[in-house]
């Protein structure tokens, strides 16, 4: 392929799932920014299935797209497919989820789930200066974000022995189950026996609102990600805060990098977006991007 500045480039996005609101906003931002650069986009749904994601990358190779952006739900599983793309000379950018060594990547754009967990833990430390007992509500067992975020949290809490993890139930990133899990925690730990509940995802607003309405103001709630519902819950005081990984920023940056690569400009090997903490203090100034 001769790179021609006037040629219409097509970039493929092998998405982990297109039906998760967060990722859907990222996809939209990616598409919009790509369009500004005059590039077409193709988005494939990986359905959170390793084999399906690998197959989608193969499909993009067969479609002869000019560049592939990969959002993977497993850091290893897509490596063989990316190697194939490397062999046929299609550049690959990893987005939102970091990949293992082994394949050649133009760049990684996103955040690290590890740092994300660290961000949540820092909020926790800030909310509980005197330490206390906390429960951590996990995502779907075994999924990469679940594992990485927990590891990140534990790394920070290791230097704060005053904060003890007393329970780690799972809500599977589901609103209704978050409510059930929160109810169970609150009945298991009556007033004064638990100090905070931290979730790995944005569903925490449901449980937090429940606690607020039922007078459990003794518990601090911290969510992950910044949806419109989380925003409202921070404003209402139900949530203490959250870590915001901007899907818009990530999508835009991936499109920018793709364009730079295809037009022969250099691209940084890694670009981590900031993971600002959102609390009551700055919620008004930072409206949520998705919901």
């Amino acid at each position: 392929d001769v790179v021609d500045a006037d040629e219409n480039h097509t970039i493929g996005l092998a998405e982990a799932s297109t039906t998760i609101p967060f990722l859907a906003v990222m996809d939209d931002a990616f598409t919009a920014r790509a369009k500004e650069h005059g590039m077409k986009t193709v988005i494939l749904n990986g359905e959170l299935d390793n084999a399906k994601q690998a197959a989608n990358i193969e499909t993009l190779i067969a479609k002869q797209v000019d560049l592939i952006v990969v959002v993977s739900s497993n850091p290893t599983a897509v490596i063989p497919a990316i190697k194939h793309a490397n062999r046929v000379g299609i550049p690959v950018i990893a987005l939102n989820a970091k990949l293992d060594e082994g394949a050649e990547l133009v760049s990684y754009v996103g955040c690290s789930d590890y740092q994300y967990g660290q961000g949540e833990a820092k909020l926790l430390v800030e909310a509980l200066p005197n330490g206390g007992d906390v429960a951590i509500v996990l995502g779907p067992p075994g999924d990469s974000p679940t594992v990485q975020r927990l590891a990140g949290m534990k790394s920070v809490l290791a230097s704060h022995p005053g904060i003890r993890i007393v329970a780690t139930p799972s809500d599977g990133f589901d609103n209704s189950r978050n409510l059930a899990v929160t109810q169970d925690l609150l009945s298991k730990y009556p007033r004064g026996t638990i100090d905070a509940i931290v979730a790995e995802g944005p569903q925490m607003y449901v449980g937090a609102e429940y606690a607020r309405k039922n007078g459990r103001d003794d518990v601090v709630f911290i969510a992950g990600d910044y949806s419109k519902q989380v925003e409202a819950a921070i404003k209402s005081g139900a949530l203490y805060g959250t870590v915001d990984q901007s899907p818009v920023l990530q999508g835009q940056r991936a499109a920018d990098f793709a364009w730079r690569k295809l037009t022969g400009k250099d691209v940084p090997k890694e670009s981590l977006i900031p993971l600002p903490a959102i609390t009551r203090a700055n919620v008004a100034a930072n409206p949520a991007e998705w919901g």
Partner: protein
Amino acid sequence: MTRLRRLGLWLVLATVTLLLAIASPTFRTVLNAQNVLEQTSLLGIVACGMAVMMISGGFDLSVGAVGASASVVGAIVAAHVGGPLTLVAGLLVGLALGFANGYLIAKVRINAFVATFAMSNIVSGVLFTVTDAQSHVGAPALLTTAATGRVLGVPTLFLVFVAVLAATWFVLTRTKFGHYVYSVGGNAEASHLSGVPVQRVQIFAFATGGVLAGAAGLLLLGQTQVGQPSAAQAWPLNAIAICVVGGVALTGGVGRIEDVFAATLLLGVIANGLNQLNVSPYWQPAITGLVILVAVVLDQYNRRRTPGRRAGNPAEPSRPTALVG
């Protein structure tokens, strides 16, 4: 005898509850009991509809998509129009989709798996396209109260569930339609020969299932305040599991709504109890699976010992039965 017949499941429920109450001091609090009742109710409502469809000889893999549609449509209507119209809209969505399922199955003669699997895909596709996969915020106060309120300490959601149970029980045992649901599920051909309006019964069974899935979707909206297109994906399999544990045959014609109630509570108590005991989320599915197995074996044993009241074939000790149902 008849009364004893299906005590099996209730005994398991009582035993499990007792064991958990002994093992966990927090399990036996009033607050926790309220929680259990509230947490099981949503899926219980879906399971009531699923039971009607299963007794009629089918099942519905689209209840999740239907529930999600009702919640999204409800949220949109609540945001733009508001009030009781939300209810109407959500239930109508459920009714229409249930009818569509029933039509495909009874008239076009597509089997229930394919019809409702395809329906689920189609509904989800439309929903994601319309909403761009984003959640919609908004629920009328009525729904919020229904989903999260308490009446004299009892969760309103549980009261709604009990009302649905009672209505389903009444329909199944005290109306001609209900009687026909059993006869069609037991032997559609014989029912047809006997003048039972088989197709109409099938269509209405699926319409009932659709309406209840829609109602559950609305209550989910009341509970979480958002209509989320990707919600409720686990409903179909979980509702079928509740029904099967409750003795509703996948082959149709057999099942009692009381036992579906027991199965709903059993699964709810286990899930809650394991959380109360701080069992690792990794172990929870395994323990749930084991308890289900034990419950079904005991229930079966109990039914086999009660003479002359077998559901289905009078199975001799060594006589094989159908694998399904």
